[in-house]
Each structure stands twice: as structure tokens, then as C-alpha cells.
């Protein structure tokens, strides 16, 4: 039995295909259209899912959609009714898309996919909950979902057991942890639904002491947080419920100035504001989780929703709450709901037992050596082929050790926002200039943003103060932990200003080639850790195809590309027609 899950029309459109209880393919639409956070109908992603299994849409038994559109529309109308006449501008700008596509989901599915079968609709936070629980390693677990907003819900908790989910309580719009974080993201001049992780990175530069951070106290005034983690905003500080902006004039006054211009240099005030929102969010989530534990009495926790991508807080959960084990959907934001929808239909609605747990994120398109060779030859690209895996590992490790920046394109593309060793840029973390080198050559990121380390799971405790046993979400770069003091100066490029690192742990069965490369690099450098950053140009999605990877390398300062068993060097190929830097954006 095949079930196709879809999410689209808000942000991060995606498709996932389930075959007899196993997610066999999943991808986000942005990787195909090359538009970051693409919201459009995930036609390319759905096509990939079907083609990967050699089936047509006629073989699909159910298509599931990640929300109840009419319920969401009810909420949107309620906003306009409540805020009349202030909501006129957003009414005029948003209604056409509701009328033409968002309320016509069945029509879109039938027309774009030529699908005539059953279409099922799952509530947004139920889809999040399913994406976290039904593919987790737990038979029974507490569930917490926290995001911007679904239909009405902005946060919910409940319990999963066997193949059933019961969401018990919710926080309703307009009160939303996700939207609070987004409002401050917007205030600091970053793009909403895209750059929240930058605020998280910036927070470490600010005052993380609740007593000393002046903005923490100010932000707490805006929110009434109850001991059970529920909360209510003073909405005079926000305008997102009726405007296309987020902070109100009151919030600007409270924070001591107008909204920061895009691209402005971050000063101490900005850093403290970032730290303040991180602290407030942590206050809310810690209180919520303690309450959820009390209500469910489960030692296991699963999480999803965009807020669950806050890896700084994720790394504190097991030490600050009574939960003993944790699992987080690697694609925790809306993109991940397509997996949730497909799993919920198969396991819960059709009452099939859970037989699959998500153990790696390589669910996207992969390319054989023949396909890669065909691309290289077809474009007259100079390359060499490694004779075997040993040569590939030895030469690649040597290149990285010599401070070369290496594009690493191997196997199935990652599911979710993080590059995890299938579409990664790798570099030497022991090189004190690696951060500047990567920024200068490739990423052009804000100076305050750290790069992430990748380490084999069996070495992680040597270098990082992780929870023990190391939680599986660390495999998906979802946990930030302190780097042990002894090593901080030896791997400066991946050590954040507060001494932490957003590590990825790799278990050999997940990605043997990647695992062995890290070990091989360790033999050369004495430290089996690499810098792993996403294989993309600033403002573009992570690369998907050999074409995307080659274009990215040639347009940036990546020195070479290890794609399948091929080594392609930038200096050996003409650069003029592949200038991808021109398209770099936020």
C-alpha cells in the first residue's frame, strides 16, 4: 500500500511516500525549484517520490494533506473580524490566494497529480505529532508540538502509545512561542520563517544572565507565563494578527528603537535582545515540559514544530526537565508534516502496527556513478575517478587536512533543513582561519554565526559534554552541547562564543562513507571532527542534483567536489559560465 503525504501553501512545501508502513522517499519542493522555503504545490517532490519507487499516481491508495484548510480559513477570517478595519491591507493581499488555491486543495491534487483517489485531511498539529511519535523509537511517549500557528493551535501536548495519538491540550492563536521568536527575528532585521536560527546563534553573544539582561525583564512584561507553561501575550506589542509586519510600535519602544534595517551590523543591544527572546522561550518551554511530564508521566518525549529546531534549547531539555529520553523529527517544521500525515493515515487511521523507525534522513534523490559521469561528460567537465573507496577516503581526508574546502555529494539527499553528510561542505576545524575561509570563499554569512562540527558517535563524548547516552536527535544536528574546555582551542572554527557546538553525531550504519572519512581525517589530524556546513550558496536551498553541486562549486570558492567516486577540481574547469554567486541573497 502506498500513501502520499503533502504539505504546502504556507512554507516548506514537501512530499513523502509511505510504502507498507515504511517512508521510502521524502523531499522538500525547494530543492527542485531552487526557491528557498518554496510554498508552492510540491509537484516535483511528489514526482520524485513516485519515480523513486517506479510507480505512478494510480498506485497510490491515499493522499494526505497536512492541515484542515477550512479550519485555518476560519481562523484567518476571525483575525479580520476581530481587527476590522486595521486588517484591510492583509485582507486584500491574502484573500486571492485563499480563493484560488488554499481552499481548493482537492482540486489542485486532482489536477496537478492527475489523482482520482481519496484525499484525507489531518489537523496541522496532529500531523506534527505524528511526524514525531509514529516514526520515533518509542512505544509510548509524551508529545509536544510547538510552532508559529497551524489552524488555531500554536502549541499542543498529549500522549502517543502504540499506533495512536491523543493530543489533550492546546495554546491557541494569537499566543505563540514561534511567532514571538519570529517577531524578534523580524525586529532584528532578519527574514521571518527563515532566519530564526540566526537569532539563536546571535543570542550566545548577548547577556544570557536573566538578572543582568535588561530586555529579558522587558519581554517578560509582555507575556503572562503561568506555572504550567501556558502563556498569553499582551497583543498591543504585536501586529502579526492583522498586519504583514510582526512587532508593533509598542514593542519597538519597549526594546529601545525602531526595527533594525536588513543587513545592519549587530550591536550589544541587538545581541541582548536576541539573548532575551531565547531566555523567554526557554522559560516557557521548560515550564511546558515539566507540566507535560506531570500530565503524561512518561519518561520519553517526542517533539515537532518549528520551535523544536531550536537546538540550543534542545540540548538543555534532558538536564532541565524530568524527561529521560528524547526524539525530535529531523524536519521538525512544516516540511516534516508530510511524513506525519502519511504515517498517521497508515498506522492510526488504518490501524496498522508501527514497523519502521526513522533512523537516518537520507530520503531524497540519489545519483548513481553512471548518472554523475553522464552529467560530467555531457558538460565537458574535467574530473578524475577514484580507483576505490580507500583512495577516495584517503585523498579526500588529505585535501581537507590541507585546508581545502571540499564539496561532498554522496547518496540520498537529506530530509530536513540540515546537511548531514550527503550534500555537505566539509573543512578542517583545526584550522583557526577555517571560519573566515569558509565565509570568504563560500558562505558569506554574518560573522557571528558559528559553523557546525560533525563527529562519529563513539568519539562524541571525548570532545563534547553531551547527555549520556547521546540522544538520537544529535544525529540530525538538533542538539547543541558544550565543547569540553580542553578541546575548544584545538577546534576553534566550530567552537561558538559560549564554548558550545551544534554537533552532528554519525553512527556508521547510517552513512558508512561519511563515518569512515571522519575517522580517516582523525588519523591525519589527531582530532576526528570535521566542519560540516550545508552545500549551498547563501539564500539558495541545499543542492540536490550534480548540476546544482557543480554550479555551486564553480560559482564559489569551494576547492573541489567529491561526487560519487569522482573528484572535480574547480581550478581545472572554466568558471565564467557558472557564476552562481550572482544569485546569492539573504
Amino acid at each position, binding site marked *: 500500500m502506498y500513501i502520499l503525504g503533502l504539505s504546502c501553501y504556507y512554507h516548506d512545501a514537501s512530499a513523502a511516500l509511505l510504502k507498507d508502513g515504511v517512508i521510502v522517499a521524502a523531499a522538500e519542493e525547494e530543492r527542485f525549484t531552487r526557491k528557498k522555503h518554496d510554498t508552492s504545490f510540491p509537484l516535483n517532490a511528489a514526482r520524485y517520490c513516485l519515480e523513486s519507487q517506479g510507480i505512478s499516481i494510480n498506485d497510490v491508495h491515499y493522499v494526505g494533506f497536512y492541515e*484542515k*484548510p*477550512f*479550519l485555518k480559513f*476560519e481562523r484567518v*477570517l*476571525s*483575525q*479580520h*473580524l*476581530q481587527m*476590522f*478595519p486595521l*486588517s*484591510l491591507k492583509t*485582507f*486584500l493581499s491574502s*484573500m*486571492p490566494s485563499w480563493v484560488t488555491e488554499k*481552499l481548493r*486543495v*482537492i482540486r489542485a491534487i486532482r489536477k496537478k497529480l492527475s489523482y482520482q483517489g*481519496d*484525499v*484525507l*485531511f*489531518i*489537523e496541522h*498539529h*496532529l500531523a506534527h505529532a505524528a511526524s514525531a511519535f509514529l516514526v520515533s523509537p518509542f512505544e509510548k511517549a509524551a508529545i509536544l508540538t510547538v510552532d508559529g500557528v497551524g489552524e488555531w*493551535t500554536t502549541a*499542543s501536548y*498529549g500522549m502517543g502509545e502504540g499506533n*495512536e*495519538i*491523543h*493530543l*489533550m*491540550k*492546546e*495554546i*491557541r*492563536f*494569537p*499566543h505563540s512561542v514561534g511567532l514571538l521568536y519570529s517577531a524578534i527575528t523580524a525586529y532584528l532585521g532578519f527574514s521571518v520563517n527563515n532566519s530564526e536560527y540566526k537569532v539563536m546563534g546571535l543570542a550566545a553573544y548577548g547577556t544570557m544572565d536573566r538578572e543582568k539582561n535588561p530586555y529579558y525583564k522587558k519581554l517578560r512584561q509582555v507575556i*503572562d507565563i*503561568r506555572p*504550567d507553561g*501556558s*502563556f*498569553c501575550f*499582551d*497583543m498591543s506589542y504585536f501586529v502579526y*494578527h492583522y498586519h504583514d509586519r510582526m512587532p508593533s510600535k509598542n514593542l519597538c519602544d519597549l526594546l529601545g528603537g525602531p526595527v533594525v534595517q536588513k543587513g545592519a551590523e549587530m550591536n550589544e543591544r541587538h545581541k541582548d535582545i536576541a539573548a532575551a527572546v531565547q531566555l523567554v522561550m526557554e522559560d516557557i518551554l521548560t515550564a511546558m515540559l515539566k507540566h507535560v511530564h506531570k500530565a503524561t508521566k512518561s519518561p520519553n518525549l517526542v517533539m515537532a514544530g518549528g520551535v523544536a529546531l531550536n537546538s540550543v534549547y534542545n540540548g538543555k531539555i534532558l538536564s532541565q526537565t524530568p524527561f529521560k529520553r528524547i526524539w525530535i523529527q529531523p524536519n521538525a517544521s512544516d516540511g516534516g508534516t508530510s511524513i506525519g500525515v502519511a504515517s498517521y*493515515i497508515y498506522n*492510526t*487511521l*488504518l490501524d496498522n502496527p508501527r514497523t519502521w523507525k526513522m533512523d537516518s534522513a537520507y530520503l531524497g534523490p540519489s545519483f548513481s556513478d553512471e548518472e554523475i559521469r553522464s552529467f560530467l561528460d555531457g558538460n565537458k567537465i574535467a574530473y578524475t575517478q577514484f580507483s576505490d573507496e580507500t583512495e577516495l577516503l584517503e585523498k579526500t581526508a588529505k585535501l581537507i587536512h590541507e585546508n581545502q574546502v571540499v564539496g561532498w555529494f554522496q547518496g540520498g539527499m537529506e530530509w530536513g533543513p540540515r546537511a548531514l553528510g550527503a550534500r555537505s561542505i566539509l573543512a578542517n576545524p583545526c584550522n583557526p582561519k577555517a571560519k573566515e575561509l569558509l565565509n570568504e570563499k563560500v558562505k558569506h554569512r554574518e560573522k557571528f554565526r558559528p559553523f557546525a562540527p560533525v563527529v562519529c558517535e563513539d568519539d562524541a563524548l571525548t570532545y563534547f559534554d553531551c547527555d549520556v547516552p547521546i540522544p538520537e536527535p544529535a544525529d540530525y544536528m538538533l542538539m547543541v552541547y558544550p565543547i569540553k574546555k580542553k578541546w575548544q582551542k584545538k577546534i576553534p572554527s566550530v567552537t561558538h562564543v559560549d564554548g558550545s557546538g551544534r554537533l552532528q553525531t554519525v553512527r556508521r550504519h547510517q552513512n558508512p562513507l561519511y563515518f569512515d572519512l571522519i575517522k580517516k581525517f582523525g588519523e591525519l589530524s589527531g582530532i576526528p571532527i570535521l566542519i560540516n556546513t550545508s552545500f549551498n550558496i547563501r539564500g539558495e536551498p541545499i543542492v540536490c542534483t550534480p548540476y546544482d553541486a557543480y554550479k555551486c562549486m564553480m560559482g564559489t570558492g569551494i576547492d573541489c567536489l567529491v561526487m560519487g567516486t569522482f573528484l572535480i577540481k574547480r581550478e581545472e574547469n572554466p568558471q565564467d559560465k557558472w557564476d552562481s554567486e550572482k544569485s546569492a541573497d539573504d
Partner: protein
Amino acid sequence: MSFLKGVRQGMRNFGHLISVLVNTALLLVVYLLGVGVTSLIARISGKQFLQMKQGKKSYWSDLDLKKRPLEAHYRQF
């Protein structure tokens, strides 16, 4: 040929402009008469569409979302 292409493009742009104007005019009428009148009546009768008031002991609301028959999921609401 390029002249004809230009004319076609111009007509398309003109058509787009007209549709934007008509849509905006229609939506404005809907907003003022539909949303506006309903909103005024709601205000008079004290109806709140969004819960904005602070002061509760807890802001958790009952959700009780669990397995329902398959048929319930054919609905978009």
C-alpha cells in the same frame, strides 16, 4: 514579430492590471460589507473572535484530538 510580441505582452499586462483592480474593488466591498458589518454587530454584542485577555489561571485549552473514523478526515474542517 517583436512588435506583435510587445503588443501581446502589453495586452497581458493590461489584462492583469484590470483583474487586480476588479479583484481589489470586489474584495473591498466584501471587506466593508461582510467583514465590517459582522465585526460591528459582534462588537455590539460583546463577541470576541480572538482570545486576547490575560489573567486566567491557565491558558491551556481542551483539545482532545484523538483517533476518529476515517470519514472525519475527508472533511476539510
